[in-house]
Structure formats: C-alpha cells, structure tokens
C-alpha cells in the first residue's frame, strides 16, 4: 500500500503497465548493492534511488578528484577531496529521502564482500578494474546472486547479466584470461555520455530484474559503439571447464553448453 507521497513521487512509473503499484512495492522492498561510484555507479545509483529502491548499499574507497567531474554525475566541484561514499549519500538522500543508503568506504576482501552480497537482491558491478570484477564474479557465483555487469572505454560500452544457473556462463567464462589488452594513455580514456549510458542501463536492468521483467542480457552480452550508435548482441556461452561456475548444474545436465 503506497502512501500519497509515494503515489506522487513514483506517479510517472506507476503509469507504466509493467510497473504499477505491486511492482513499485517490490522496488521499495528491494536491496541493491552498487560496487563502484564512478562513471557507471553515479548514474546507476541516481536512477535507482529516484525509482524508489528501498535500500542501496554503495561501496567505494576513493575520494572525488577533479578529473572525475567529467563523467561522475553524482559529484560537483564542492565535492573535490571528499569521500565519494559520503558525497554520494548526501546527494542520493536529497534526491529521495525514502531510500536507505548504507555506505562502505573501503575496498572489501572476499569474506567482507560475501557478507555484504549475501544481504542483497541484486549486485551492480560498477568497478573499473579486472581484479575487482573477477572477485565480484566469484562471490556472486558462490552465492547465486544476480550480477548486472557493465563497462566502458573510449566510445565503447559493454553490458550483460550473470545469474544462476549460469547456463550462459559467468564473467570468467567470458574473459578467462582475467586481463585486458594493454592500453596506453591515449586509448584509456572514456567519454562521459558513453559510460553514463552504460550505468543508466544497469539501473534500468536492475529495475526490470526486481520487477521480474525478462531481459535479453540474461543470455546475451551487448556491445555498444558510440561512434556509429550501433549495438552488437552476442549470445554468451558457458565454458565447459570454468573453475568458477562449473559446479552449478544447468538445465541440460552437467557441463553442457547451450548454443
């Protein structure tokens, strides 16, 4: 049962056929963890707080730097040198005071991450480095938690969802090397709108997940090219020998890959 204030605040999405009062209540009861409050995490956190997600746990150990302002939409010039978690919490509370924001201002190890992720409904991987992504994947697979994973560089973005039973694999199936191609300073930048778009889509997919709306990303990865505004949609495949997700049974039986 929504209050009058909630009816007004969420009126624009209550009008959508696939949302409505019941689904809005599910959003209000949801707990989402956002790991990383940079270019992806900023718009993701903003849209999830404003959509009425009941509880957000936001994790980042960094402070705001002037170079962040080019793309990290939660912060402004007055936030420089402040902790990202504290600046973000203040901003998100102002956007939606009903959203309970828990902040964690440290880089978590596996045990700590496990404890946090256990409590969440959905995880958003908004980090900016491979070791974090590999760790998040290991923990999410071990806990059978849905992970909405996106990334961006230059004009390019990627987004997908890893979830049990891992019929289409996990992050380690997709990128078993656990490494990126070595890049130099000229190729390591990113455009604000590109990374912002990918973080925004993570929020959209999280809302769909809480509302039990199916997503192509459950089985596919989408690659965005900002130069020609094109998307590639590719079906993901489980790796038969993946050390991370291989213990999860699939619909077709042990270690079968669906093509």
């Amino acid at each position, binding site marked *: 049962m929504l209050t009058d204030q909630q009816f007004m605040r969420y009126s624009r999405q209550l009008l959508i056929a696939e949302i409505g009062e019941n689904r809005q209540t599910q959003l209000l009861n949801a707990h989402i963890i956002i790991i*990383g409050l*940079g*270019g*992806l*995490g900023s718009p993701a956190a903003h849209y999830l707080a404003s959509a009425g997600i009941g509880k957000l746990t936001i994790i980042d150990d960094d402070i705001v730097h002037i170079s962040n302002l080019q793309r990290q939409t939660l912060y402004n010039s007055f936030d420089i040198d402040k902790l990202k978690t504290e600046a973000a919490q203040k901003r998100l509370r102002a956007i939606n005071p009903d959203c309970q924001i828990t902040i964690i201002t440290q880089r978590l190890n596996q045990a700590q991450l496990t404890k946090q992720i256990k409590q969440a409904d959905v995880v958003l*991987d*908004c*980090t*900016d*480095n*491979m070791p974090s*992504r590999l760790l998040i994947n290991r923990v999410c697979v071990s806990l059978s938690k849905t992970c909405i994973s*996106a*990334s*961006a*560089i230059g004009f*390019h*973005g*990627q987004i997908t969802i890893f979830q049990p039973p891992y019929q289409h*694999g996990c992050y380690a*199936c*997709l*990128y*078993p*090397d656990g*490494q*990126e*191609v*070595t890049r130099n300073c000229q190729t*390591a930048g*990113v455009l604000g709108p590109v*990374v912002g778009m*990918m*973080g925004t889509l993570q929020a959209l997919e999280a809302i769909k997940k809480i509302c039990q709306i199916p997503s192509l990303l459950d089985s596919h*990865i989408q*690659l965005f090219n900002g130069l020609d505004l094109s998307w*590639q*949609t*590719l*079906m*993901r*495949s*489980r*790796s*038969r*020998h*993946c050390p991370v997700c291989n213990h999860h049974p699939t619909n077709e039986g042990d270690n079968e*890959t669906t*093509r």
Partner: protein
Amino acid sequence: MSITINDIETEFYQPQTIIALLEQLKQPTIGIALAINQTIIPKDEWATYQVQDNDSIIIFQAIAGG
C-alpha cells in the same frame, strides 16, 4: 572459404581452427573474446572449433573500465 571478421570479408584457402585463424591474422589472444554468427565461443574451444565458409566473426576486447 569466405569469412567476415569484424565486418571485413576475407578469403581463406583452407579450413582452420579459430586459433589457426587468429595466428594468421597475427591477432594476440590475451584479453579478447570472440563470437561466430552472434554466439560467443569460449576460449577453451578455440583450438578445436573449425571455422566454416561464410562464418561471421566478431572479435572484441575485454573492457574493465567504469
């Protein structure tokens, strides 16, 4: 056989595995993923998976930034 790689059509004169194809292209294999006809082929199959005539291959890089 004719294969499209990242939208560029190329001719190859004998059947090959993915690994052999990447070697011919001098494409380093670390930090990349590959799809044939819109389906990703896991890396542990590249040594045995045979590329076919008219296959469309997409090679893309792992991106961790955010």
